[in-house]
């Protein structure tokens, strides 16, 4: 056991320590990391971000690195472990280069300062080079060795080759994230889920966006079952038990409404004062008030009954009187439903939640094809929401709307509301695992897989094809780097034909196992050769060569258990497109490289760390000042 405490280390050693932790779960031979939260809850993960954040590092530079990794992975969902590897290797290369040839043009008072200046300079140039050239280079030299799978192909049919590729891509992702054992099963399940949700709109990647945003409401974790019991079920699962007995009615369609407030009028809000028996014209007792609320509630229930509503959903907990009256009216009530689920319900059904109980319009009424309790497990436990009977809802067919239109007089209005309805059959994902830690891990991996796919198929904005514009669009972090772009010392794109500027297509995938790194390595070396031949630069080592050698650290680690395979793969890099090692996304790799280079630059720009001493109670203040230094360093 070792206690983790590093008072002051240089960049290299800080990142080196992180690298040592990450390597345990990196690559096909890596394993899980078990960590406990301060609540005592145990979590399992192979996700780099989770592992790094669990370390609770104290060193400011380490915290900054972790922050960068976290920001990167929340966008792309992938590559957090490679991030640390690349970062460590880049820092090492920069340091060796800088120590060999410290900046000579300026006078520094120490060798160290000169080295730091050179390193900073190198990092800036690297970033400038990457922002300017990297996407073209990847598009020209690397992408042709991969395959482009269009989202339309994938969504077209279940057993198309595109579907096969996506499944392979997901399998590699889950292999690295969860381990080999279940990766095939889970990637199949994910593909199935995507196939069910794919036709959510005409926009190709809208389904991914939708899944990304609504994932918490779409999945249900169930612990105590083997992972292979995970499955998809039709409809939306509401994770609450029925508050009233569920009447088994078979009439179709089932009409449902959502309430945001209390059904029984709240007579007194906080701060109100009710005066009882003030001796006015009429003798009013408190009993009259309570009788009035009950009567109004009865009217409301009668109104709902006349509209044919039989399922009521509510955000807040309703009073016993509401539940009793609903039971008597043969309606079933589900209260305390989470906002996430109700928002998904509203999106799927097209019905707006009712805030004013006295104005119930047809657009408030959702029609469901079924609504039934589901037992996720053999027992019904009272305190475990996932065991409670859950009600599934909703797929609205066009003909069902017609039914409402006839009974109401708001024909045009209803038609307007529903014409943009998405035609999708909702499916929910049930994630089983032997414990809560495992189901959480699977759920995180699912979510990140969707993010990864989203990054892979993120369409290029119509106007911008350059790297700078793309990344500005996807992340704010590059905004202030434009001044670096004016730096002239990097190789210009003279050797790339400007007329045939390639564009990195969305959906480009590559064989995994270091192929991308090898190809880019060669492309960068080629570029540096042509650069040094054509123009006389003022620095000895072109940054492209530096980047090229740093890239090799990734495949080196992948094949750390068999160096022979490393050489074999290295020589084979130009061979045909194989899938033996799995597949990975080119745009995720590209985003990763940019993020790493930005992190390197911001790390090297910090020249002094001031350790201020503050009393413990102002810790939060110290933390915020921390954030600001970080931001300064980054921007």
């Amino acid at each position, binding site marked *: 056991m070792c206690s983790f405490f590093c008072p002051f280390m240089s960049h290299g050693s800080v990142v080196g320590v992180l690298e040592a932790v990450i390597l345990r779960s990196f690559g096909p031979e890596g394993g899980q990391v078990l*960590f406990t939260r301060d609540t005592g809850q145990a979590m399992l993960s192979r996700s780099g971000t989770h592992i790094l954040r669990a*370390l609770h590092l104290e060193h400011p530079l380490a915290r900054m690195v972790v922050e960068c990794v976290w920001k990167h992975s929340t966008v792309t969902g992938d590559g957090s472990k490679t991030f640390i590897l690349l970062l460590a290797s880049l820092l090492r290369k920069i340091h060796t280069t800088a120590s060999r040839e410290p900046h000579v043009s300026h006078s520094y008072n120490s060798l160290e300062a000169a080295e730091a200046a050179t390193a900073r300079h190198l990092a800036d140039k690297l970033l400038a080079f990457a922002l300017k050239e990297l996407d073209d280079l990847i598009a020209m030299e690397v992408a042709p060795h991969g395959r482009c799978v269009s989202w339309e192909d994938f969504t077209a049919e279940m057993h198309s080759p595109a579907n096969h590729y996506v499944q392979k891509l997901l399998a590699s992702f889950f292999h690295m994230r969860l381990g080999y054992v279940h990766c095939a099963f889970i990637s199949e399940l994910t593909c199935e889920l995507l196939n069910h949700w794919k036709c959510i709109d005409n926009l190709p990647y809208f389904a991914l966006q939708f899944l990304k945003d609504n994932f918490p409401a779409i999945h249900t974790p169930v612990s105590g079952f083997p992972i292979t019991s995970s499955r998809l079920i039709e409809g939306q699962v509401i994770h609450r038990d029925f508050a009233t007995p569920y009447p088994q009615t078979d009439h179709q369609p089932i009409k449902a409404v959502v309430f945001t407030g209390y059904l029984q009028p709240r007579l007194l809000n906080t701060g109100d004062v009710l005066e009882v028996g003030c001796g006015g014209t009429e003798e009013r007792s408190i009993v009259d008030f309570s009788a009035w609320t009950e009567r109004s509630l009865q009217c409301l229930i009668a109104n709902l009954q006349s509209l044919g509503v039989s399922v009521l959903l509510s955000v807040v907990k309703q009073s016993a009187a509401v539940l009793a009256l609903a039971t008597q009216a043969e309606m079933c009530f589900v209260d305390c439903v989470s906002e996430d689920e109700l928002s998904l319900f509203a999106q799927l059904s097209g019905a707006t939640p009712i805030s004013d109980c006295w104005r119930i319009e047809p657009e408030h009424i959702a029609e469901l094809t079924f609504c039934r309790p589901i037992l996720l497990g053999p027992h019904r436990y009272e305190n475990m929401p996932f065991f409670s009977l859950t009600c599934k809802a909703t797929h609205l067919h066009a003909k069902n709307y017609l039914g409402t239109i006839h009974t109401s007089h708001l024909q045009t209005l209803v038609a307007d509301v529903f014409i943009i309805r998405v035609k999708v059959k909702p499916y929910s994902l049930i994630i089983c695992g032997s414990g809560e830690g495992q189901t959480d891990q699977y759920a995180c991996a699912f979510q990140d897989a969707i993010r990864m796919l989203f990054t892979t198929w993120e369409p290029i904005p119509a106007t911008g094809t350059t790297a700078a514009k793309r990344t500005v669009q996807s992340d704010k972090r590059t905004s202030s780097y434009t001044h670096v772009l004016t730096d002239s010392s990097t190789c210009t794109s003279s050797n790339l034909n400007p007329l045939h500027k390639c564009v990195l297509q969305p959906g480009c995938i590559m064989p995994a196992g270091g192929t991308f790194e090898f190809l880019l390595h060669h492309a960068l070396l080629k570029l540096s050769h042509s650069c040094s031949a054509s123009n006389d630069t003022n620095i000895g080592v072109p940054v492209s060569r530096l980047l090229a050698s740093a890239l090799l650290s990734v495949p080196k680690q992948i094949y750390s258990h068999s160096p022979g395979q490393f050489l074999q793969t290295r020589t084979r890099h130009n061979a045909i497109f194989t899938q033996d090692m799995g597949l990975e996304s080119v745009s995720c790799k590209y985003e990763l490289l940019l993020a790493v280079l930005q992190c390197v630059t911001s790390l090297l720009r910090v020249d002094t760390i001031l350790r201020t001493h503050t009393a413990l109670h102002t810790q939060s203040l110290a933390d915020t000042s921390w954030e600001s230094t970080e931001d300064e360093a980054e921007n």
Partner: protein
Amino acid sequence: MSRLDKKSPSLCTDRPLDNTDISNKLNLLRQLLKSCFGPTARLKQVHNNIGGHVVTTSSSSVLLPVISSSQPFINLIKASILNHVSRFSDCGLFAAIFCLALIEQAKRSGLRGNVSIRVNKHLLALCSGYLQGEDCGCKVKLDFCSSHNLITLARSIVSSKPACVLTEQETLHISKLAVQAFLLTVPCSSSGTVSLGKIVTVSVEGYSVLTSVVFPGLLVDMPDGLCLTKFDYLSNPIRMVLFSTSLAGDLSDLGDGMIEVHAGVDTESQILDQLLELGKQVVDDEVKLFVCQKVVHPVLQQYLRSHGIIVVERVGITIMEPLTQLTDAQPVATLHTKIPSKAYGKVRELSMKQFGSKTMLHLQPLGESVICTLLLCHRNETMLSELKVVCQKTEHVLRLTLREPSALLGGGCTETHLAAYVRHKSKNEAPEAASVLGCSQTEYLLGVEVFCRSLEFVAKALQHDGGNSLIDLTHAHHWTLPADVLEEHMEDSLGFCGCGLVESSPSRKWTFLDTKYTEFLPLALVGDSRVQPRVLDSFTAKLSALQVATETANLALDVRYIIQDVN
């Protein structure tokens, strides 16, 4: 303001399986759980450091939650097993012992972590395929026409919990009651989806186990002991009303604001008048039984009683659902509106039951009902609480048979049979399997040995008195040889195998479980339906336990690093 503390850095452990502290703890846990396994298990007493109540148990669902470890690695395994137990109620110890044995054996074999994980996964699929298949030699089809196998299944569960301290006769009595109660909850007329009823368990201390009994209908506590011994005057059926709101005279649903009451206004009496108004309606509607989930105002109670109505208050939320199912009443929660006539429920008969200090009102349903009450008696509190746990588990296991009407042979026979099957099967397909799993044949066979030895370890764990475990070489069932018997007299002293299906005969051959034997295909027992197994295990629970245990062991083998937040 919340307490602000400096976050301390996390504690890290590299390669936890190589860590001696963790290995020792795993070993200790395995020894502890192993000694709790089976009908001859050693009991454990649990008591806390502040002199609380002492629990005697051997059941994993009671024992595991109280074992707390500072080591997250242990807690990971514990949590998985507990989750399994909470879903399936049975085979918790099987899962725990098998999982710990797998981890131990895999570590000892020196196989690479990834290889053992893949082999385990492969063999698990092999086992589940075999168990679910038609020609499985250790599975028994359950026949609902006779209760014999159901009682055997129930008895295996009851007898595997020695902390109940039951005699042979008592065990049988409790098993029969459990099956009877279970059958009462299954509706006779089934149309469409079947919804099962509920067994309400009432426990009474200080009586013999044999006085335990099952009643159809519900027993509701009558704490104030208003003993009406004669209910003859009640017309049949008896009309009843059920309130789900408080009738104590409070108005809770008005909101958060303040109420200012001027002098001279008696709000309380106004509310009470309203309550009495409600009481009047109930009397007019000829209600004879008045049940309230919460408190009823004493004046209202008095009024109702004076009109010959039986008042039961504070029945609690848990009994509300069975009550509505039994009586068909709809709970009422409004005070100001007339109670609709369809909200009233009906009861066929009411009677008073007296058990020790408890006086209970027995409500019998009008028609067929799926609600029943299991009254459990035992001599002292500790044994009674264990008995209650066991009965709930038995009910759950019996329910599981409705989905999958099969059971597995108990007494360790399933484990040895499965081990023999896996050995035989994997020997034949070693070259193909090894290439699929990406390992060498030697590694694969070593992995198979790890898996089979772990299965046999579980069978051996049933033995606590120093006896020897044997396996016969035709059916691969599990046999126990008492410690004081010489090997020459083996045939005579073996009698029957663990599950009671195979009888000892001179032509049989045995071998000790930890010796190597030449692999063979274990035969299923065919024909002879006269011999019934004596010990059965739940099929669904055991299959899931096998899967959960293997998955948990695989996870544990995959953990390379532990980060502990010590804040």
